[in-house]
Structures are given as structure tokens and as C-alpha cells.
């Protein structure tokens, strides 16, 4: 009876494990935020290391399991319920043999770990050498509760672009992320490009990322940072150099004047509301620094750090009830009368 139990255990564990293994294999590809779906050299090297570790460690696991379960089918077990005799020690020969086996297994463990150590350290080293000071570009990312302040570094201050929650990078060019934090500790993580790097107040942390082919990669804050830690995402949009340059040129321009009278009215509503104390729109009187820059808000993919897709409807909902959509957010609930709302939305969405 006990024996059947044991084998049932064997079968079941095996089945469960295989099932999971399959899930694992098909699950890990083709996601906009996946650690094993690399889109750049850094994440590529990490993924290679990952599959190496995965293969080796899985083998070890299976071997250990096999031996563990074999103990259930040993003669000792079959002669199970016999009364206890004086000696609780098998013949010395067995012990000697066991000692040799266990010693061998231990040495094997040490060697395998040594291999893994070498692999890990060398990967780390080669990743750290990927950075490229002279041809690389520098982007400052500052974590805030709960959004990302982004600044493209340039020696000419007039060419320094400030934006939020969305990073465009040229493909095939190394980009250095200079991480800082305004309040608590956040962590910058775009899994398809590279591992995470904490953004720590009073410190500057750096990491090099690079995208091989054009694409849109999602990132998320990976260090618990308070109420809305869950809604602190960002997009990295990799595009060819030329496309990137034109984007940059457009973003550097001040906000485009509103098209049409409703837009104009919306602008006035915006400038006379509390919005301007936190948000800035280059080319207008709005110069707030504590909230995301809205100069080209209309061109962005999402609202409130990846909380909602950027549509005029969502924006309306966000402005009228931010605390309902993102409880605890620092976005103020500003009473906007229904007739004012539409122009305001048109104006903001018009900031392409």
C-alpha cells in the first residue's frame, strides 16, 4: 500500500513537472515585456545565460528526483515491515560505496557551480563592456511617484529634450540611462532590453541599453514605490536613426498653437486652471515642474504612465476623476465644468 503511494508520487510529480516544462517553453516568447524575448545585445546575452542555466539545472533536478524516487523501490523498502533487528547499520561495504558516491556527487556539485560561476561572471563582464562612451547617447530618467521624467542629455541646453513616460531610441546605438529619483526608490526595467537598475534618491545609477531592431518595448517600475507602484510603466520605442532624428526635431519644437477656436478656448481654460502649477507646455505660460511635461502630449501612447491608452475619452475620464482611475495619484482632482471639458480635451490632445 505504501509502495503504491510512492509510485503514484513518482508518476504524479513527473507529469506535473513535464506539463509545467511545456508551459514554460511556449509561454516565454513574443511578449512586449518578457525577460526571455531579447531585443538587444544586453538582454540577448542574458537570455543565452538563462537558457544555459535552465538546461543544466533542470537536468540536475531530474537526476536528483530520479534517485530520490528510486529509494522508494529499494529492497530495503520491500522488506518494509520486518521487525527492527539489533544493527541499524547496513554492512560496511555498502557504506564505503555510498561514501564514494556521495563524495563524487559533492565534487560534481562544486564543479558544476564553478562552471555556472564562470559563465555568469563572464557574461556580466561582457555586458558591462557593451557601453560605448563616444558614440552613445545619454538619457536621464528620473523616477517620481508614479511616473517617469525623461531628459535627453545634450551639451547644448537648447537641444535638451524633456518628456515623460516614453523613451524613443535609435536602433543599433548604445544608450546610457542615467537613473535618478525625486522621492523614493524606483527601479528602471525594460526586460526585453536589459535587466533592472534601481533609481535611488541622492545617487546616480547608470546602465547601457541598446535595441537591435525597431520595436515598442514596455518597461515597468520594479521596486515597490508606494500606492501606485502597479501603474508606473513606460514605453521604449526603438526606431531607425533617421526616424528618430525627425521625432527629436519635432519634439524639440514648442507646442503647436491650437487649431480652431475651441482649441484656443481650451488653452485659456488650461492656463487659468491649477494645471499649470504642475504641468508645463513649452511656448505657453504653463511652467509647472512637478508633473509630466505636456508639450507634445498628443503624440504619446498612454496616459498616466501606461495606465490608459491615450484617447480623448480616456483623457476626459482621467481629468475628471484621476483618483478613481489611479487611487492615490498626485494628479489633482480639479473641478472642470462639463462645457469646459471638451475644449480642454481638444487642446491637450491637439498637442501632437
Amino acid at each position, binding site marked *: 500500500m505504501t509502495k503504491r503511494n510512492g509510485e503514484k508520487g513518482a508518476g504524479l510529480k513527473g507529469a506535473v513537472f513535464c506539463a509545467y516544462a511545456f508551459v514554460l517553453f511556449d509561454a516565454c516568447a513574443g511578449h512586449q515585456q518578457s525577460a526571455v524575448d531579447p531585443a538587444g545585445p544586453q538582454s540577448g546575452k542574458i537570455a543565452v545565460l538563462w537558457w544555459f542555466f535552465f538546461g543544466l539545472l533542470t537536468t540536475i533536478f531530474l537526476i536528483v528526483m530520479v534517485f*530520490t524516487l528510486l529509494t522508494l523501490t*529499494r529492497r530495503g*523498502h520491500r522488506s518494509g515491515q520486518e521487525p527492527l533487528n*539489533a544493527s541499524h547499520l547496513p554492512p560496511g561495504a555498502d557504506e564505503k560505496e*555510498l561514501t564514494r*558516491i556521495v563524495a563524487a556527487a559533492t565534487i560534481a556539485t562544486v564543479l558544476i*557551480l564553478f562552471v555556472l560561476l564562470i559563465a555568469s561572471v563572464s557574461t556580466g563582464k561582457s555586458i*558591462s563592456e557593451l557601453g560605448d562612451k563616444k558614440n552613445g547617447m545619454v538619457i536621464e530618467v528620473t523616477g517620481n511617484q508614479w511616473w517617469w521624467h525623461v531628459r535627453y542629455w545634450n551639451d547644448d541646453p537648447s537641444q535638451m529634450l524633456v518628456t515623460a513616460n516614453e523613451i524613443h531610441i535609435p536602433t543599433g546605438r548604445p544608450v546610457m540611462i542615467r537613473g535618478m529619483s525625486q522621492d523614493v526608490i524606483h527601479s528602471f526595467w525594460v526586460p526585453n532590453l536589459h535587466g533592472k537598475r534601481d533609481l535611488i534618491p541622492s545617487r546616480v545609477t547608470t546602465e547601457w541599453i541598446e535595441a537591435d531592431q525597431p520595436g515598442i518595448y514596455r518597461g515597468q517600475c520594479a521596486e*515597490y514605490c508606494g500606492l501606485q507602484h502597479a501603474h508606473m510603466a513606460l514605453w521604449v520605442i526603438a526606431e531607425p536613426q533617421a526616424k528618430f532624428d525627425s521625432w527629436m526635431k519635432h519634439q524639440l519644437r514648442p507646442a503647436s498653437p491650437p487649431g480652431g477656436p475651441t482649441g484656443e478656448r481650451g488653452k485659456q481654460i488650461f492656463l487659468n486652471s491649477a494645471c499649470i502649477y504642475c504641468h508645463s507646455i513649452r511656448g505657453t505660460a504653463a511652467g509647472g515642474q512637478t508633473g509630466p511635461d505636456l508639450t507634445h502630449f498628443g503624440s504619446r501612447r498612454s496616459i498616466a504612465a501606461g495606465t490608459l491608452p491615450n484617447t480623448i475619452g480616456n483623457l476626459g475620464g482621467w481629468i475628471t476623476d484621476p483618483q478613481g482611475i489611479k*487611487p492615490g495619484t498626485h494628479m489633482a482632482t480639479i473641478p472642470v465644468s462639463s462645457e469646459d471639458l471638451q475644449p480642454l480635451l481638444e487642446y491637450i490632445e491637439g498637442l501632437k
Partner: protein
Amino acid sequence: MNQTEPIPNSSEREAQALRDLENSWQTPRGMIGWLSCTTHQAIGMRYIVTAFIFLLAGGIEALLIRLQLALPNNTLLGPDRYNEIFTTHGTTMMFLFAVPMMEGMAVYLVPLMLGTRNVAFPRLNAFGYWIYLAGAIFLYWGVFTNTAPDAGWFSYPPLSGPAYSPGKRVDFWAQMITFTEVSAMCVASELIATIFKMRAPGMSLNRIPLYCWSMLVQSFMVIFAMPAVMIASSYLLSDRTVGTHFVNPAEGGDPLLYQHVFWLFGHPEVYIIFIPALGFVSSIVTANSRREIFGYPGMVLSIVATGFIAFGLWVHHMFATGLPQIGEAYFTAASMMIAVTSGVQIFCWIATLWTGRLRMTAALHFVFGFIAIFVLGGLTGVILASVSLDVQVHDTFFVVAHFHYVLIGGALFPLFGAFYHWFPKITGRLMNEAVGKLNFWILFIGFNLTFFPMHILGLKGMTRRIYTYGSEMGWELGNILATIGAFIIAAGGVVFLINIFLSRNRGEIAGDNPWDADSFEWAAASPPKSYNFEYLPVATSRYPLWVAASERTFVTGLRNDRREVLVTTLMDAEPHHRLVLPRSSLWPLLTALAVTIGFIGSVFNAWYITYGSILTGLAFVGWFWPRLPVETKP
């Protein structure tokens, strides 16, 4: 077997001796007696029961977490409530369940295994329990009055600092840490003194049961790890209450320093929970494979080595903060080294089972489950040790899966095995084996269903501690599986409780040694008498109950009319002198109350530190005041 048989005394002297023992060791009746109890069996049981209640509390919180995450964009719990619940879950499981539970088991078992009558400091033992209880109630007072901590079980500043965690929430957390660490230190120091000085004659260092070895190592780890968290929580408390600048970067403090100090405790903490479990496994394996454990010296060495290495790898919790290459390489190596020591023990157990004559008890089922789950968790641990991989999976559900595999697999499964193994000793009745095996399979399947998918979720980019996620992320499948699994685990818990309650009243009578096990606790009556042994046993072998009954040896000459035990030498356990242990006393409770007043008050007003200290000082004077008649040399 009843060890009074070789004693050639006339029956009435026998009876008189027993009466004397009963009188001198019994606890006074009534409420006062209950509060003043200092026998290790009672205190141990209180630890175990209280810690089990908090296991249930933490489990309920876990179910709430899983319910919230079961579906994308779920609104069952708001962000604030969710943060409070996962913080309370982690804190409860770590500080109010795992450590106290392991201590409770040790307080109950170690004196029995060493063949003595109580721990070295019975009143300190009681004090430790009362302090732990006070801390636990304090935290849950906060939870029930909407003052639950919400900064994570590690409370990183600045998020947990005065500027970003307003109110008293984090102070409740930090002060609860102080309570539990005081309690842990009390138990650790009394266990060290007991294991060093109160072993049965002849139980030299190389004959100590492996469980006692692991508790010895664990106690030393407590002593060197807890001061670190004492400092970390004091950083937080003083910054939050009196405005010091330990973690304020603007004034020269440093938030990263907090992380270093916290993990200097936090990593050993994992082994503080897990090393006692190794002891359980060794005992269960030895008893149920009915052969001496394979490679005793290797086991002892690897336990000790684990204890040392555990202090050298805290930084692998901080790889994402960006460290110098060389440092990373060192900590990667250290973190991987710990796998060797664990590996050695796994191999030795497998070797023992390989050549043993297995008895597939429920306890042994849990041991097999432990090996399966813990090996997997250990291997994912190797992945986390590698800096390059860690920066990808750190703070994702991969890590959540990893440490649940290591902690539930490595500590909870052995613990349940231990419950099934020692339940007959504690209650005198066997637990139902069939239900026990059912219980094991439910827990094992539920556990893997809950936590294995989390590996995949982590790789698919699901970060920890998020209260919700969008449906576009492709995380539904894993999460719904995990939630289902969580409820299966809950069902397993219910089965266990039912088994406990049924077996406690209707289970078949166990007898002293139902498993034909090897160590001294099985020589005592089940349940043990308040004095454990009428005649203290002598260890003539590493497996003292496996020597022929005619070669058993016992100690006579201890006075029965007072609580007298035998102190032996450190290395060879030669009898050295007799020691009179204190009787029942209310002072531990009163002292604990004084300390509690000081601790809880100081959260709201720093002056209470002074008031509390004065009260505590007075209580200690009462504690140590010489009782008359003063005992003098006979």
C-alpha cells in the same frame, strides 16, 4: 520503553520519589498558576499554538492577495488595502509564524532530546513567550484598527520614512520587530546554554542529535543576525519618531545603508527558519528509514558551514542597486557556495533512504515532498545568485516563486512532517496516517499549482507587489492557476486541522516510542511528565535508544524535592555539578508587561523608553530578589 525497570529499588521508595518529583515540578493550579508556568513543555506548546494561529492569519492574507490578483484589473482590494495585506502577510509569516514556531518546537523538543528536565533559564523562556505574544498582538491591533504597515516586510526607506509613510503604520511594524527579536534572542541564548551545558552524561559533541546541532547553529545565527535588524528597525523608529537622520540623504544619512543592514539580518533569517527544518528531516529520516543517519560528520559540518556562509551573501538582495564588478563576483560565488552545503545534506539523506528499511509514514511523505520542492527552490536560488540573471528576475514573481519554494518547501513541509512525527509524543495519541498522506498530497499539488506558474509570470515581466495588472499583459493564466492552487493549499490546511482535532481525542494510543526512534525524547512518557524523566538517561551511543535495554544507563542522586538538574561539561558531557532551577514565577509576565509598556509607549512618545526602562528595572529586581529560605550547601 519504560526506563524505570532496571532500577532495583523497593516499590514504596520508588513511589515516594515519584511523588516528590511531581510536587517539585508541577505548576500551581488556576489562572495564576497558568500565568506563572515555567516548564518547557507548556511554554513550547504555547509558542507552537500561537505561531500556528498566525500561520492561519497569514494564510488568510495570502488568499486575499491571490483573490485580488486572480483577474486583471480586479478591484476587490484597493491599492492601500492590498499593500497593507501583503506587508502584513510577509511580516506575519516571517516574524510571527516561522521563527517563533521553530523556537517553540525547539523549546519543547531540545530538553527531551538532551535528556534533561527543562531549559537552562525557565523564567527567561516564559518571558520570551510573553514578549512575543505582546508584539504579535501589537501588530494585529494595528491591522484591525486600520493602522496596518504598508511599506513591505522590509520597509525600505525613504518610502518607509517619515516623509512618505505618514502616520504610525510603519512604527507599528518596526516596534513589532523589536518585540519578536527580543523573544528570539531569549530563546537563542537559553538554547545555547542548554545544549552546551545540560546534555545527558556521555552525550559528547559527536553524539548530539542532528536536530540539536541545527538548533545550536540556528541559535548562534539568531545571536549574530538579530542585532542587525535591531539597528535597522531603530533607524526607522528614531527617524520617524524623534527625527534623527540615519536614512535621510539630505543630512548625510543613507537609504542604501538601511538595505545593507537589513539584509545582513534578512538573509541569515532565511536560514534561521530553514536550518531547524533540516533537523526535523534528519530525525524523521533516521527514525523511518530505521538506520543510522548516513554521514553524520558531514551533516554537522555542512550545517555549521551553512551558518557561516549565510552571513556572507546578503548583497545578492541588492544586485539591482548597482555594485562594483568585483563585489558582485564575490557575492555570486558565496551565494552559490551555499548550494554545496545544502547539497551534501540532500545527498546524505538520499543515501540514508537508499540503504534504509523505509516505513512510509505521513511524516516521511512530507520529507519526500520537501526534497522535491526544496531542490527546485535551491536551483532557482542558484539563478538568483548570478548577477546578470538576477537583474532580470529580481523583484519579479520569479523571486516570489523561489522563496516560497525554499521557505514553504524547505521549512513548512518538514514542519508538517514534524507535527506528524512528534504529535504522539506531545499528545500520547497517533495522528491518522491515511488522512496524513491525503493531507500531504493536497498540500503538495496545491503548492506546485500555486507557485510554479509564478516562475513563468516573473519571466514574462510580472513584477512583485503590484495590486493589479492589465489584461493586455498576458498574465491571466498563471495568476488564475496560482489562485486555484492557493485554495487547494487552504483545503490541505483544513484537512490537517481536522486530523489534529480528531486524533487528539480519538487517535490510537501511541505508547512511549511508536516509531522505534533513536533519540531520548522517545524514552520519556507520552505525553511527557513535567519532569520529563524520573531518572535522567545517560547517552551510551549516538542513537541511545537503539542500544540493548540491558546496556542503558541512568543517573541517580539528584534531589527530587526541588527542581534539580545535572550540568555537564561542554565537550565530553562529564557530570560537573547539580543545578537548581527556579520554580514557577509571575515575574516573567510582569517584566514582559513593563517592557511592553515601554516599547508600545515609545512609538507614540519617546519618553516612554525611560518610563519603560525604570519599570523593567524594578521588575528585574523582583525577578532576581533572593527567595527565603536561602538554599545553602547541604
